[in-house]
């Protein structure tokens, strides 16, 4: 049935987009009832019928169609702006001017999409951010079975990207899907760092809309990861703290005696041995008195990677988190002597458990799920907010900020 809202070609284009990119859970934000439907094909048909019948406003539907891909299983590339060059006023002005260049998302399919187009812009004043949605032509490698043989052939696909310009947190977040077997997006190929060139492509694209801006290397991120790891693995047990504080002078005395007996009087030897003994002793105290789970941080750490320039250490917990046991001790020693380049964290939101990695990279930090679990963007945003809180804490106390 078509009573005039959507043409046949619009229905085909939308159906193709939804079939490729949309999961049943995505429909929840449009209609709880629809999302319970059986089979994606039927749900899509029902949605399009509701739009045709005017039960879902066409403009509301277009906004949903643009923004729904923010949720799901994306990689979030977070770039920090050097100056506060983006303001609410600037985005509000843009909102009134940009309408002429926004393309109608329902009109495009892989048949007629020649290059990257902007299909939506929304200013979310309550979250102090603007969200830009782009569609781009992409190429993926598809495996096709011919008889007993499997052959890989390149296939065209429409690719979604959402770019969040956050003037509250002063960063730009590129949210893109790590599509399997992706070859290129608008002729930009992946490299050894995965989708990084594609994220950079969209970052550069933003200059067409918000003008010139410069990105600041997030030098604070390794320290922020350390603080998050410390908070996420801390025992929070005052008994452990009290006993540990009592033990420190004994440990230092014993270590000093031991080293002196062997004529090892270098301060680095004392620092090295006493650090190891203190860590081992604290670990034993945690075994005895336990971790206070109730006081724990809402994030738990299940894995970390420490980079000591000429060496690296991977530590992980297969079940649970890195707050007790031998692995926890190794993790703590790693944090003390290396930069964290990757942190695996777990959190619970609305009775769901989410696991993702935060990686520090040259010009940005990356947050990505370590599963294919459907993740609402809000869960990721909470992590970014937490990291920005650490950033403020680090930058307000560090010496040399005035000389940078």
């Amino acid at each position, binding site marked *: 049935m078509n009573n005039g809202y959507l043409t046949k070609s619009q229905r085909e284009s939308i159906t193709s987009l939804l079939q490729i990119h949309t999961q049943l859970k995505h429909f929840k934000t449009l209609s709880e009832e629809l999302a319970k439907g059986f089979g994606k094909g039927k749900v899509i048909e029902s949605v399009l019928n509701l739009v045709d019948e005017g039960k879902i406003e066409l403009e509301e539907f277009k906004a949903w169609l643009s923004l729904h891909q923010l949720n799901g299983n994306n990689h979030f590339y977070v770039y920090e702006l050097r100056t506060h060059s983006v303001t609410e006023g600037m985005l509000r002005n843009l909102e009134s001017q940009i309408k002429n260049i926004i393309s109608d998302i329902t009109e495009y399919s892989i048949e007629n999409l020649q290059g990257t187009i902007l299909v939506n812009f929304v200013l979310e004043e309550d979250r102090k951010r603007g969200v830009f949605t782009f569609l781009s032509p992409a190429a993926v490698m598809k495996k096709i079975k011919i008889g007993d043989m499997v052959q890989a052939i390149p296939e065209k696909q429409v690719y979604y990207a959402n770019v969040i310009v956050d003037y509250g947190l002063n960063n730009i977040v590129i949210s893109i899907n790590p599509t399997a077997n992706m070859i290129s997006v608008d002729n930009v190929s992946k*490299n*050894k760092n995965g989708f990084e060139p594609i994220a950079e492509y969209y970052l550069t694209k933003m200059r067409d809309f918000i003008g010139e801006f410069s990105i600041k290397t997030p*030098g*604070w991120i*390794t*320290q922020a990861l*350390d603080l998050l790891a410390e908070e996420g693995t801390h025992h929070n047990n005052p008994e452990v703290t009290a006993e540990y504080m009592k033990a420190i002078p004994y440990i230092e005395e014993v270590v000093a005696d031991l080293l002196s007996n062997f004529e090892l009087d270098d*301060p*680095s*030897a004392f*620092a*090295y041995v006493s650090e190891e003994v203190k860590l081992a002793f604290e670990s034993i105290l945690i075994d005895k008195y336990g971790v206070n789970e109730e006081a724990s941080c809402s994030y738990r750490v299940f894995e970390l990677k420490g*980079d*000591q*320039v*000429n*060496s690296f250490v991977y530590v992980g917990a297969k079940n649970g988190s890195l707050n007790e046991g031998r692995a926890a001790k190794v993790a703590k020693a790693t944090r003390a*002597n*290396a*930069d964290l380049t990757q942190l695996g964290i777990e959190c619970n939101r609305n009775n769901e458990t989410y696991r993702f990695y935060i990686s520090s990279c*040259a010009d940005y930090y990356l947050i990505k799920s370590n599963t294919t679990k459907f993740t609402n963007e809000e869960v990721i945003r909470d992590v970014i907010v937490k990291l920005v809180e650490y950033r403020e804490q680090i*930058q307000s*106390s*560090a*010496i*040399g*900020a005035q*000389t*940078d």
Partner: protein
Amino acid sequence: MSSIESKYNLAPSVLKQINDFIVTLRRNDTISSSLFARKTGLTVEFAKRVLGELVAQGIMEYYIIVPCSNPLEDAEHYVVFSSLEDLNSFSVEETCTVCDQCGHKFDAINAKFGYRRHDKDKK
């Protein structure tokens, strides 16, 4: 250390913190500028300048480690240079000799600087 104090007008307590950290480094301990920043309470950018000064004074030494561009996670290999001159004279067209068969070039863009205590006994 005194030239750092005068050049950057650092408080004695900051200087002490820098010194206390350096003396805890073992011969084989390598640090990055960000680890140095974390341990001494400096910003990363400022830590880089202080480390440069410590190298100039012969207290620390640096080296540069460059990964090959093998796209497989944790399958990259490294080549080490003891000075910027050595790095500059190295051709990035050279391929990694460890992953011989894949023949990936070295990725100078992702080079890392490591710092360690200057080993005065080294020949």
